[in-house]
């Protein structure tokens, strides 16, 4: 059997590929921002002295980190439906991805918080900074700076993982590919193109985060620490 590849037949569907790639980036962007907030809250919650809150945050993080994203997406999808709530596939996808990446972000942020030397917090207390000021300037910002590379890798992985949302018919890049290959019978070419698009998207995201890091953390840039 010989392999005959016909890329032009598939490439002429480029507007669909583009729309899918844009939706993938939108999913990733929403889930990244919301997941970063949720994860930071969960990390703060795990560090509180209230054992009820700390326990709840731990259960959240461990449950999510030890079950597959595909199962989580289906649970959110059918869970919301069984509550009688009807949402678009996009909303369900963003919700599930946010819950998912929130747990991973929480673990990374916790590592960041633990890396803040105790003495710095004591020094801030000595300077009579308020609790809120301490949390923001002494704990949160330096912690984010420390774990920034790990966070960004996690968010790129999230973008790749959003391909799983094709299973609940959110029209992102992989769903577009599934549709095009069933229409053109050119599965191999379609998925090669989509794979290349994902590699490009992940490189673009990495470059974007790197640039953002240079702007956000000028101190780090001066120290010459790689982002």
């Amino acid at each position: 059997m010989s392999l005959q590849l016909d890329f032009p037949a598939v490439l002429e569907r480029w507007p669909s590929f583009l729309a899918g790639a844009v939706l993938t980036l939108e999913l990733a962007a929403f889930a990244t921002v919301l997941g970063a907030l949720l994860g930071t809250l969960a990390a703060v919650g795990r560090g509180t002295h209230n054992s009820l809150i700390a326990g709840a945050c731990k259960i959240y993080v461990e449950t999510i980190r030890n079950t597959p994203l595909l199962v989580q997406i289906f649970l959110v999808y059918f869970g919301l439906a069984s509550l009688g709530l009807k949402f678009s596939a996009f909303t369900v996808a963003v919700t599930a991805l946010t819950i998912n990446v929130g747990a991973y972000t929480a673990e990374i942020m916790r590592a960041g918080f633990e890396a803040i030397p105790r003495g710095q917090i004591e020094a801030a207390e000595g300077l009579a900074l308020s609790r809120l000021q301490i949390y923001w300037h002494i704990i949160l910002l330096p912690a984010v700076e420390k774990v920034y590379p790990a966070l960004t890798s996690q968010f790129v992985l999230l973008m790749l993982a959003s391909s799983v949302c094709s299973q609940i018919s959110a029209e992102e890049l992989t769903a577009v590919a599934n549709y095009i290959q069933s229409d053109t019978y050119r599965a191999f070419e379609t998925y090669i193109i989509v794979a290349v698009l994902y590699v490009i998207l992940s490189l673009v995201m990495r470059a974007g985060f790197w640039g953002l890091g240079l702007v956000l953390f000028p101190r780090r840039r001066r120290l010459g620490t790689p982002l």
Partner: protein
Amino acid sequence: MGGHLNINHLMFLGQGALWTIGLSVIALIGGGIVGFVIALARISPLKSVRLASAVYVQLIQGTPLLVILFLGYFGLAAIGLKVSPLTAASASLTLYVAAYLGEIWRGCIQSVPKPQWEAAEGLALTRTQRMIKVILPQAIRIATPPTVGFMVQIIKNTSLASVVGFVELMRSGQIVNNSLFEPFAIYAIIAVTYFAMCYPLSLFSQRLERRMGRGRSNLAPA
């Protein structure tokens, strides 16, 4: 349609769970073998080998596993090989796991302290002897906790093999759901089963890490 969850359904789910474990083991062994080669290639003295393996890792790590699975399933069919879902899933997961384990293990090999490499060289060991007798035994110790941690990822990722029709835990859940239509209850059972497989490994990995941390901090000042 209709009916209730009965013992036969649970048996079917149990069978799916066994296949999840089976596929994970295949992916770990296959990915481990290829990943080991990748790890060595990444630190090879030959620039072309280093470059080729780095490109491989970047490509795989920049592509979702779902797309790799589709490529394996349809790609092998396109070159005229008739592949079963199990073969396609095993091949795709092997390639995927190899890229990640290769990077993890490269880091572990490189984190063996520099003087160890130099001492081995000073004892006139060849490159192969140096690797096998000095570096790898220490690297394996460093590599154990992250590898166990990554096994959790492998188990979770096998759930994606359901989309190419391989009947593992997730797919068997979907099949049961097609006859009962109680999605929330069934996927909750599936989630609990995955958790039961993954959580012990997570805990084990954490414990290994802590133990390693103590051992290493004792060795640190040199």
